[in-house]
């Protein structure tokens, strides 16, 4: 029903714009913004959803976590800020859920100061609510943020304790049981960076993954995803690109783990408005081209 109402409203509006364009009237950019705004509002209000299935590049990241034996050490780095969060936070939450469901140990890092507080949201909303048995220092630990960008990676690839004398709360690393047999990143089984800026996935590949020979996966904001594709599959074992990648991962997680059937899936919910908005943008491109060719033909006809 929601889809039909949205289609009528949006379709009617687009038809009106097409007629105006054919009459030779300009379409103000504010009309375009308003249309996209209305489209997204309708899709969010009616909670439109479309099916998603994991593409090979997302499935590869999923399968890598799946294939690791229980108790493997996984680094998840929160390298993003609130501006990127709607796209990449769902990925981070999905990775955390998956890793904990497989009984892996998670080492949280953050190369962005803002990532540390967003990590706290995951700890409160996912870890403590859905995995109350997960114990700090045994199943997961938070190393927190350190200034220094790729310089931080350059140090922790040889010795974590040189850069992190303690965890985010200042607790000495040696007092955390899960750090007992960890000297450097080379002791990790998988590195996952989630971000979209610098430092981010690329820096983790260059300064940690490649240098230490450690399998690396990534989740990136849509803007930076195309720049990371060349690293797949040899330097990145898998990559989640933007909301689409996050939605694919969420769908794969739900498919393989029935206990997550009723979890909050923000990325899957976001794909409805996303699809509708893209349809409107494509419609605007078509209208623009029709209008352009018509006006050019008129010019040619009028001599």
């Amino acid at each position: 029903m929601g889809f039909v109402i949205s289609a009528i409203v949006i379709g009617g509006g687009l038809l009106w714009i097409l007629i105006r364009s054919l009459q030779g009237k300009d379409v103000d950019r504010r009309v375009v913004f308003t249309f996209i705004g209305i489209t997204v509002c309708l899709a969010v209000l009616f909670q439109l959803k479309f099916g998603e299935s994991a593409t090979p590049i997302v499935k590869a990241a999923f399968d890598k976590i799946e294939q690791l034996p229980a108790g493997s050490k996984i680094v998840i780095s929160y390298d993003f800020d609130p501006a990127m969060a709607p796209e990449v936070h769902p990925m981070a939450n999905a990775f955390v859920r998956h890793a904990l469901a497989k009984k892996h140990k998670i080492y949280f890092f953050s190369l962005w100061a803002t990532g540390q507080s967003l990590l706290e949201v995951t700890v409160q909303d996912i870890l403590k609510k859905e995995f109350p048995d997960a114990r700090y220092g045994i199943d997961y630990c938070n190393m927190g943020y350190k200034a220094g960008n790729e310089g931080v990676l350059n140090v922790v690839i040889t010795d974590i304790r040189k850069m992190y004398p303690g965890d985010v709360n200042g607790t000495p690393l040696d007092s955390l049981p899960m750090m007992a047999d960890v000297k450097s990143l080379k002791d990790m089984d998988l590195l996952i960076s989630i971000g979209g800026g610098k430092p981010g996935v690329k820096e983790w590949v260059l300064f940690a993954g490649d240098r230490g020979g450690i399998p690396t996966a990534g989740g990136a904001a849509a803007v930076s995803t195309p720049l990371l594709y060349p690293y797949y599959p040899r330097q990145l074992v898998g990559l989640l690109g933007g909301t689409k990648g996050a939605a694919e991962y969420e769908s794969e997680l739900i498919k393989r783990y029935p206990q997550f059937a009723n979890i909050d899936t923000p990325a899957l919910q976001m794909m409805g408005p996303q699809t509708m908005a893209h349809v409107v943008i494509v419609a605007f491109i078509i209208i623009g081209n029709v209008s352009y060719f018509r006006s050019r033909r008129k010019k040619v006809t009028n001599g």
Partner: protein
Amino acid sequence: MLKSQSGLAAAEDHAVRDAFLLTLAAFLTLSIYSFLYGDNPFYRFAEHLFVGISAAYWMCQGFWSTIVGNFIPRTLPSFAEYFQVPYKGFSWHYLIPVALGIILLMRLVPKLSWISRWPLAFIIGTTAGLNLPRYLQSDFIQQMNNTFISILPDWQGIGPFFSTLSLSAEGQLAMIATNLVIFVGVICGLIYFFFSKEHKGAFGVASRIGIWVLMVTFGASFGYTVMGRISLLVGRITFLFHDWLNIL
């Protein structure tokens, strides 16, 4: 009785505070989006607030994680005690980055701003020194290595090729097509940037294919950028409808 009344009052205070913060966030969201109509004071206020708070937040996090986390435990026991961090013994070499950091702040003093060039030179030099070998190894050599791919991956003969003929990404046909696109795309893309020979004949055709490869790449990048911007819009509208107006 008194305890439960004070608890209720505290809960009410929290509810009022949360409602105020949510409304403020909604106001700032709408202020930022008001730029789509045109530049205005609401947008400028929200923008300045965002930049100021971001800078302050990064500075505070940097201070507590790096200065307090790494430097203070290596100074004096009294300092470590004051900041409640375990003392790790005095290390004089930790004073070097602190001194460079203070010199960097001399930019704020016009007469002494020239001194700040020294730590800047150090930062640029070390960053370039750190990045050069990594970029050379992982971005240059390794990326070239990634391009050396077999056009016929895991060729199992003509029989299995047709029996597993499928358009799925795991299918042999799709893998061969992918590798061919990479091979032709890289060669033609490089030819487009080769200006020492006139782009005519077969060379010109390859150059034009190179342009198409570049156009497809830019188109994919633009598509992803659009997706990113729409995701942010969906995120803010979900916030307005769900968290602020509570109608979802």
